């Protein structure tokens, strides 16, 4: 009987901790997406301003880590072609990237000036967007790390509590 109770106790603690780790991983994934969007923006800046490549060529050249970012950049290209506004793109980014709104706003705004700015101005604007995106990422990452640390502590206690109740 003691073996069953021990197994049940351990299992409950592990399950609760796993649920909390799932909650944490959602934030980690968001951070990874944000990092990739920053990497792409940096790539876009260098290949547009220094190598004078078009958005289409850059999209084909860049090796995307996640399919969501690839989809987003493809969508961005469509928006550029159709001369649609950044506000419309922002709605899409918020919907399927789920990254923080201020961060998304700087990324979406790229389409407002990308097609029509000469390289020196584009360089400045993309640098500014990158700075703001990095700032936004740092803020989000700091908040997320705090929550993650708290969750880790709570998860063990909550796991033990749930196990005691069950056992």
């Amino acid at each position, binding site marked *: 009987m003691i073996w069953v109770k021990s197994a049940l106790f351990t299992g409950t603690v592990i399950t609760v901790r796993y649920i909390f780790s799932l909650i944490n991983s959602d934030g980690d994934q968001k951070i990874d997406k944000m990092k990739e969007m920053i990497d792409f923006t940096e790539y876009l800046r260098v290949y*547009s*301003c220094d190598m*004078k*490549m*078009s*958005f*289409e*060529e850059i999209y084909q050249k860049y090796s995307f880590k996640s399919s969501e970012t690839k989809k987003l950049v493809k969508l961005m*290209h469509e928006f*550029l*072609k159709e*001369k649609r506004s950044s506000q419309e793109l922002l709605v899409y980014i918020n919907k399927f990237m789920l990254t923080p709104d201020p961060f998304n706003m700087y990324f979406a705004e790229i389409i407002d000036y*990308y*097609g*029509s*700015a*000469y*390289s020196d101005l*584009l360089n400045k604007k993309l640098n500014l967007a990158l700075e703001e995106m990095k700032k936004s990422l740092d803020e989000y990452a700091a908040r997320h790390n705090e929550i993650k640390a708290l969750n880790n502590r709570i998860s063990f206690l909550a796991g033990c509590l749930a196990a005691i109740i069950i056992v």
Partner: protein
Amino acid sequence: MEALLKYFNQRLKNVFFLNKGLLDEALEIRIRINNPLLIKTLKKDLFPDRSTLITKRDIDEILGSLTKNSIHAYEDEIKKGYLTLEGGHRVGLGGDCIYDRDILKGFKNISSLNIRIAREFLGCSDKVLRYLIGPDKEIYNTLLVGPPLSGKTTLIRDIARNMSNGFKSPPFDGCDVTLIDERGEISAVYNGIPQMNIGIRTDVLSFCKKSDGFFMSIRALSPRLVICDELGSAQDFEIIQYALKSGVKIIATAHGFGIEDIKRNIYLKNIIDNNFFDRALILGKGPLRLKEVFDFQSKKVISNDMG
């Protein structure tokens, strides 16, 4: 020509769809803000739809597709006032210019586009070849002189092809040719690939300054003939002198209505007065119409359009 349609937005595409065959005759398509679309043909100017006026949005959309929505990627060309399209067509730009310390940086508001349709007239130089080759198969240093739209570039392109491939009348086996295509117009280079037939022995230096092109080609490509567009700048005297000293022959173009007209350009006057060229082919108004052939050595017109 249908390939050009991909650059137009739906509103203007509709104008072409309603007027089938319009593009086949067109020499130029002129798109000007607040004005109807104008098609220039050999015979006359056509306004296919006077009620459809070009808007700023139309021009922005066309410009977007011409530059693949990446104007920065074309800014070096835009600084020169034109864009080159696949097929060698050229788009001239009009609008508000932006300067940075006296240097043209580009355009702020583009308000007009002039699409010049590149056409290849293979064999258009066949009739002039006899004026370019001497009795001992020596190539004459030749200047092609003509006003705008007289077909200088088309003619010099076909001369490059013929000189490179060789021809039967008068018999000429062909030679190595370097084409210094300063504006990418003669070979109509798009993404590094000449869009026109310029011959099997032709090396192209596209978007290359004449001064650099002459020195590079003579040192490294060892051509017998160098072909270039539009003489008339300060450095041309020196580079032509260098080329002639190196034993290379030159065929070049110049803007003008005749010998006296081009002599108004001080740099060309120096070149002509020093007898750097053996002959001049003078083109008349209208496409590819040879008005006269002038021989600088005898200082005589050796042929004119009266025969």
